[in-house]
């Protein structure tokens, strides 16, 4: 199984911004390396830029774990609508 990297934007809202979701991720998937590139948190919503690296399958599971904890996950490129 090859190593891979995923660049993602996480959006925390609807309560999950008050939960230590990233810590939970590190406990659940210790072999998925995460690198926080930037983050911003508001009153009701927070965003975080994350680079995840590890085995493909583990990355898929880690992203599903984040989603199941209420975090919206978008790829960095092509994840945001551009003007048309």
């Amino acid at each position: 199984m090859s190593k891979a990297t995923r660049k993602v934007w996480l959006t925390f809202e609807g309560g999950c911004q008050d939960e230590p979701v990233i810590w939970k991720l590190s406990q659940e998937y210790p072999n998925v390396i995460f690198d926080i590139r930037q983050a911003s948190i508001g009153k009701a919503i927070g965003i975080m830029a994350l680079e995840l690296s590890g085995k493909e399958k583990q990355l898929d599971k880690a992203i599903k774990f984040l989603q199941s904890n209420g975090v919206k996950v978008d790829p960095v490129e092509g994840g945001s609508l551009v003007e048309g």
Partner: protein
Amino acid sequence: MEMEPAMSYVKSLKSRESGQEYPIEPRTVCDIDFSPVEVAYDYKAMQGNVTRQSIEAGPLSLWRYKDLLPIEGEPKAGLHSGWTPLVKADKLAAELGVKELYIKDDSANYPSFSYKDRVVSVAITKAIEFGFDTVGCASTGNLAHSVAAHAAAAGLHTFVMVPHDLEAGKMVGMSVFGPKVVRIAGNYDDVNRLCSQIADKYNWAIVNVNLRPFYTEGAKTHGFEIAEQLGWKLPQHTVLPVAGGTILPKVNKAYKEFIRLGLVDDNSPVIHGAQAQGCNPITTAIEEGEEIFRPQKPKTIAKSIAIGNPADGYYVIKDILNSGGWAASATDPEIIDAIKLLARTQGIFTEPAGGTTLACAIKLIQSGKIPKDESICVCITGNGLKTLEVMENQFQAAPVIKAKIKEFDEVIVQGNNAAATA
């Protein structure tokens, strides 16, 4: 008109957050912080060389601002784009009870009747400079129309990717130029993601994806023109539509560049945003005091600005608030009313995006966010003839009469419809 070759003042691509610099290349985001990258210029070198006179000596197109655009050689597209009218809208001003009102009218832009001709002129020129032979875009209509037209003129292969349910009129408007139209079963988000993958896999220039830093710079020319056409000064208030978030930060950047170069006085220009009620993530964030917006699923007649997750939305909020501005939203009926008002008072027919901008400007005036005695510019970005279906059923069919003067007198002059016999 032949333009003299000039040196480029472009320095690099720069991350908006960390300031990390990159060479001039097709690139969307910074590898370090994942923020959008932006073109950086050598403003020091421009001092004394980029002047009112040097600009006025240029062609009557957006390329008169070439020194402030990210191209290296001569323009390869859009030689007649830009330089649209700035209309002193006295009749509309009287209706709204304001002192000084202008309409920057990109419904008259060449060749595709929307502000998109500005960004596409720069993007296509850049695509040719980079050596691409195929260009494309993800579009809600106006962009596809413009890309198809400019690419046809430049002799490039063109793919335009659109949501499958695009209005029939817009489909015809882009197809006539001969691009490969790709209709995608999904919403705009799906179209955009696919475009990102296509750009990587096929090495094509997708103007609003991998050429985005260059493409967006073209929007500055809308702001440059406002300033120059106003007699080298800035309006106190500028109201702009917000879709993906290109034009508002770039008009703001244009004003700041002109101030920095000493071409206009710094009057602390205020920038306001306009969105449709059915797609207003930016207005909602500003009204709720949030710096981060929540993406929305669009539901509005203003389809050309129906982007629920704006790529540069964060910077729109920042620029509006830093300038002391605000944002408003308009309902579909308010958008229609504003389209009619602009047509009735100034003879300008805009699409729902323009109706949204005017309707929001009216709300900002009524709420006191825009004082009635200060100069205001409302930016109209598209032409109403491209979205005629929106105005269908808005007007009663005129009665048909026989070609007889008696019937004209009775039915038309005296208003007796029952007398119409044809």
